[in-house]
């Protein structure tokens, strides 16, 4: 491996079948191959450090097109590995090592941690559940004009309190939904709500949960999300995505440890 090349790591698994990687390309359109160590296998592909070294990477991460292209390429490799039905541990985007030897060393050092992580996600998949609350309709415009300042204030207070109530009831519904889903799941992680612009929604996101669910219970999980959404207040909407590779549940470093 030449000095201006690095190794991008996609995921770690107990075994990666060579047939899975046949014809598979990753970031930079380079072929994906396997590096082994510590009884584990990592899916990797070469990257040019002129593009993926620390400084250029920093700049690229600010480029939305580059970011999307790279994120999708990273994800596609991980999904392809997960399609085998065997557990995989996804690495965070832009995990780059200087060479195969470093990847092998890392696998050897962290092999008990990876083994534990693989155990944790075996037979399970990640599901995302987002809940949105539409702003309650104002409903004031159609009424006749207030006859006095006092009347106006009274109406305004009622309007505001109705809005608060609607907001509170949506927050309660999201909390109940999360509690019910987390009970069914093996693990749950709440993510910060996505910004409305990014989520492509007018309604405010009031729940952005990820859940690690036994494959055997995924139907039950989706049904629960639908059922809860169905009996919530108008304007409350639920979106389920998945199955995802266990991005949110594949942790190797101790909780609270340095990242």
């Amino acid at each position, binding site marked *: 491996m030449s000095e201006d090349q690095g190794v991008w790591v996609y995921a770690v698994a107990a075994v990666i079948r060579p047939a899975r990687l046949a014809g598979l390309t990753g970031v930079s359109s380079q072929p994906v191959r396997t590096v082994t160590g510590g009884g584990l296998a990592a899916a990797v592909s070469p990257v040019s450090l002129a593009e993926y070294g620390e400084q250029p990477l920093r700049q690229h*991460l600010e480029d939305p097109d580059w970011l999307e292209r790279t994120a999708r390429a990273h994800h596609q490799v991980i999904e392809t590995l997960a399609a085998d039905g065997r557990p995989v541990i*996804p690495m965070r985007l832009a995990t780059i090592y200087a060479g195969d030897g470093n990847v092998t060393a890392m696998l050897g050092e962290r092999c008990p941690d990876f083994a534990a992580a693989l155990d944790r996600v075996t037979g399970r998949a990640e599901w995302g559940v987002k809940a949105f609350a539409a702003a309650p309709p104002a409903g004031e415009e159609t009424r006749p004009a207030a006859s006095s300042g006092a009347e106006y204030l009274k109406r305004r207070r009622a309007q505001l309190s109705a809005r608060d109530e609607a907001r509170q009831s949506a927050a309660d519904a999201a909390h109940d939904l999360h509690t019910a889903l987390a009970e069914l799941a093996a693990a749950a992680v709440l993510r910060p709500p996505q910004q*409305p612009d990014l989520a492509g929604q007018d309604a405010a996101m009031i729940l952005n949960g990820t859940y690690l669910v036994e494959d055997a219970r995924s139907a039950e999980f989706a049904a629960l999300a639908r059922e809860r959404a169905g009996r919530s207040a108008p304007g409350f909407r639920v979106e389920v995505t998945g199955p995802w590779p266990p*991005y949110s549940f594949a942790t190797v470093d101790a909780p609270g440890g340095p990242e």
Partner: protein
Amino acid sequence: MSEVARRGTAAPVPVRRDAAPAGPPPARVALVDLLDRVLAGGVVVTGEVRLSIADVDLVQLSLNVLIASVRAGMPGTAEPDRDG
């Protein structure tokens, strides 16, 4: 009211990830959901042998850029940030 955006197939679960792909190719996942995961999730192995990783500050930066580009793509949007 509820919308189940399940990828791959519209058939009800259980999930069969080992099944041969049949029918239309899987829908692309939403970029925002993907970035949520590949930038904030996934394993981070600390250690000197690692060259780099997407760090949290950059993630925020990237998302800001992304928001700006999303906004630019929408005609006549002037809505202020509601939650900063």
